[in-house]
């Protein structure tokens, strides 16, 4: 009994000291992960994931609070990328957070705009130009299509339009599925 205890105190003390060192160092690992995750998110900043922007969502994933299938703009590709990074199995997009939509941009019907600047305040990427009492316009290539500017507009002069397709932005589609793939 006594010998047992002595022997063990010795072992455990050594063990504790060694571990003491190492355990502290593990802490640092956390943060780069958030960056890695954030780098995979589409940065639409739409908040559909239930967090105020992409980075918060990234932090939530890293913290194990959020699942990886909550970002509709990211779509299937986004989820797979996250699964790869985190070594999990991919899963279908969680319908609670919305569905995958074709990419769209906001267009302000300028004659109607009363220059209330509400949309400017809403836009997460400052993609709307304009000053008080002057009509506003959307910088198309900066707009991420987050739709946050739609709601605030008092005169409903903002609508979302699909990004224009032309011969240069066109790309080959995947061939129809191999034989027998129903639907």
């Amino acid at each position, binding site marked *: 009994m006594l010998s047992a205890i002595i*022997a*063990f105190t010795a*072992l455990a003390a050594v063990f504790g000291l060694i571990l003491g*060192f190492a355990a502290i*160092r593990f802490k640092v*690992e956390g943060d780069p992960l958030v960056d890695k995750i954030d780098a995979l998110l589409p940065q639409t900043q739409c908040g559909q994931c239930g967090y105020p922007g992409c980075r918060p969502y990234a932090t939530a994933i890293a913290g194990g609070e959020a699942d990886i299938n909550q970002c509709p703009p990211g779509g299937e590709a986004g989820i797979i990328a996250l699964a790869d990074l985190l070594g999990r199995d991919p899963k279908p997009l969680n319908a609670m957070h919305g569905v995958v939509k074709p990419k769209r941009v906001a267009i302000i019907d300028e004659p109607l705009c009363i220059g209330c600047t509400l949309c400017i305040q809403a836009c997460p990427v400052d993609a709307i130009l304009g000053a008080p009492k002057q009509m506003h316009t959307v910088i198309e290539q900066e707009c991420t299509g987050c739709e946050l500017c739609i709601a605030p507009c008092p005169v409903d002069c903002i609508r979302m339009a699909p990004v224009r397709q032309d011969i240069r932005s066109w790309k080959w589609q995947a061939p129809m599925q191999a034989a027998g793939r129903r639907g």
Partner: protein
Amino acid sequence: MTEYALILVSTVLVNNFVLVKFLGLCPFMGVSRKLETSMGMALATTFVLTLSSVCSYLVNEYLLQPLGLEYLRTIAFIVVIAAVVQFTEMVVHKTSPLLYQVLGIYLPLITTNCAVLGVALLNVQEQHGFLHSALFGFGAAAGFSLILILFAALRERIVAADVPAAFRGPAIALVTAGLMSLSFMGFTGLIKA
């Protein structure tokens, strides 16, 4: 000489730890999604397993046996293992930051890889000597690594396959492991004794 060769063949192929002895399955399932990661894990495990096999032998031989503390074996071994893992961790971190990048995340996982404790316990159960313990540990690790890497390569191919929805993910992975162990039955009887 041949005796030691036989020990290796027996632990790597005939009594493969993962497929025949059912040890170290969690990392086997968990860290086999990507080839690179599986290789990192294989490397780390091989090192730790061999080292801890030896250390636990020493502890058992020169601490527990003399003091008649066999009943504390499990506790002692897990302590040893955890210590070895941490030790490896530090050494790697000090010597080669690059290798640390690769192995860093896996090392802690190894503590709860029952292959490691399994080897230690089996060494005692089958009364292996020092060298035998070392070889046994190494062989076990080699077997584990071999299977892990092959499995990872297979899985990378399977994710692209048109697997029925119900079987996607772990299910088909287990079926695959099953077929692997089916193939490994071919080695039975290779070592008589």
